[in-house]
């Protein structure tokens, strides 16, 4: 292979990167992948053995809400959009899944896909008018959705095997439970099922972040005007993010339906939506691990406190304080805190090993 001749900048660049511009994965990246794989395997196989059924159920909920958290994290952390009604979207997903589960005999994964798509359409319809305007308006409209949906659900009810569009039969004496996949009927098996679905959703998010939409979102977050000036159709990409978030939350709703078997409107109160945003902010909106942290805060801690007889209200107060702390100490916007903290951590770790710290 003959090397490009000349001393000009273009030639220099070509020499430095002869064939591919994509580097091979660096050692820190390989380590990160390794740790992730170990944790996933641990969660899938070791965890159910170590915990009582009560906590296995809790961890199923953690898996469900980690999906909702990652969806909200993409919106807030990657695009800068705030949704104060993500639990309402979850309710729509759960409702759709329940309806389909009772009405059809399709396999569970297919139902999850359909529930996700229905929720995606609903989310896009709700978000579209606000997405062309200020971010504050989207926050408000989603808050209003959260406020109104509990009452609508109380009227419409969740499907319970009845007929008609709503699938609700008010006079049923014995309400059938929402079914689970045949291979994952027991609680530990369903837990593994929900973890796998969660991993798939995280992979879907990663696939977006590393490619064209992720780059467009980064541009929009930096400056919407500059993004437009670069030719990015910002409304389209914001809509795409909202559609993705709604899809994932819808799928999570489907998993939730099978997890708890019976759905009621009180499962989706308005305050849950804002508590969810709080834990997502506390867990860190930029890094995908933050979604896992958020779900643990949201489901595992209350479960623990419940076991110890402590009121969950203390957690609500803690989350409120957490929001204020995150927002006042983050240097710019809702996003930057975590990457900067991780960079500082990496800096300190590599210095301890005696290596030269990378210029960050």
């Amino acid at each position, binding site marked *: 292979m003959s090397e490009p001749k000349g001393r000009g900048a273009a030639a220099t660049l070509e020499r430095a990167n002869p064939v591919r511009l994509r580097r091979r994965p660096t050692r820190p990246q390989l380590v990160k992948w390794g740790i992730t794989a170990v944790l996933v395997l641990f969660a899938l196989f070791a965890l159910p053995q170590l915990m009582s059924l009560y906590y296995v159920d809790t961890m199923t909920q953690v898996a469900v809400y980690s999906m909702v958290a990652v969806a909200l994290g993409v919106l807030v952390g990657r695009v800068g959009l705030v949704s104060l009604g993500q639990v309402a979207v979850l309710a729509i997903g759960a409702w759709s899944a329940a309806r389909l589960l009772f009405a059809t005999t399709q396999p569970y994964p297919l139902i999850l896909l359909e529930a996700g798509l229905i929720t995606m359409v609903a989310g896009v319809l709700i978000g579209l008018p606000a997405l062309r305007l200020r971010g504050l308006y989207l926050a408000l409209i989603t808050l209003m959705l959260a406020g109104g949906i509990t009452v609508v659900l109380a009227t419409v009810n969740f499907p319970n095997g009845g007929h008609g569009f709503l699938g609700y039969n008010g006079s049923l004496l014995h309400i059938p439970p929402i079914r689970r996949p045949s291979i994952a009927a027991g609680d530990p098996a369903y837990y593994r099922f929900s973890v796998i679905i969660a991993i798939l959703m995280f992979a879907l998010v990663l696939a977006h972040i590393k490619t064209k939409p992720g780059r467009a979102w980064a541009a929009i977050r930096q*400056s919407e*005007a500059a993004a437009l000036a670069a*030719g990015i159709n910002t409304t389209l990409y914001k809509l795409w993010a909202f559609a993705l978030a709604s899809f994932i939350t819808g799928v999570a709703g489907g998993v939730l339906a099978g997890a708890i078997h019976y759905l009621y409107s009180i499962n989706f109160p308005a305050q849950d939506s804002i508590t969810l945003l709080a834990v997502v902010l506390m867990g860190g909106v930029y890094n995908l691990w933050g979604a896992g942290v958020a779900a643990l805060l949201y489901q595992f801690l209350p479960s623990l406190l419940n076991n110890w007889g402590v009121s969950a209200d203390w957690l609500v107060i803690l989350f409120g304080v957490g929001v204020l702390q995150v927002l006042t100490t983050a240097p710019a916007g809702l996003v930057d805190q975590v990457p900067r903290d991780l960079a500082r951590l990496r800096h300190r770790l590599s210095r301890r090993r005696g290596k030269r710290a990378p210029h960050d």
Partner: protein
Amino acid sequence: MIEVENLTVRFGGVTSLDAMSLTFEQGTCGLIGPNGAGKTTFFNVLSGFVRPAGGSVRAFGVDLLSMAHFRRARWGLRRTFQTEQAIDELSVFDNVAMVHEHSRHPGSRRGDVLDAIAFAGLDADPEAGVRTLGAGQRRLVEVARAVVGRPRLVLLDEPAAGLPDEETRHLAEVIRRIPEHTGALAILVDHDMSLVSACCATTAVLDFGKLIASGPTAAVLRDDAVIRAYLGVA
């Protein structure tokens, strides 16, 4: 050629551009004027961020104002902003490639991007994260974004703001060569008269939203009306 006719912009009670008419022929053109003269507003009209109350802009025969803002970039409008817009979390390559991937361009993206990076004189590794670069190099990334692909109209809004002399000189040289390298017309807004003199063959001057002078740069900078506009009437 860019033909601006009777462009009027009002914000609330303030008239930012007052039936402004102006023609940019070719090459790199300067646009100067005191603060509040309407230069950035003019750029915002061209970018599509501000809707004018009246008037028209024809760019190379095309009615620019009828296009949606993000479509103008695809047509070939490029712009840099007063505040830095290079995206920290992406690499140099991705920053420049982004402009390319949101338009339809024949030809190799990689080739076009590397060419633009080389033209800007940016000797950093294309895979380097932008957050690792210094201020001058980040400005060059923005210039690379402005020239990648096939731009037709390049708007540069105070590109040298905050840069030391050495880097400003390099930037001036790059800006001066934009038309010959890309075939585009470039408009430079700046307060640094030496930069304007170095890059721009012709210059137009705005004051209070109206055109008060235009022509060869050296002559314009000596024009009485222009000096009065900057210094105020004694």
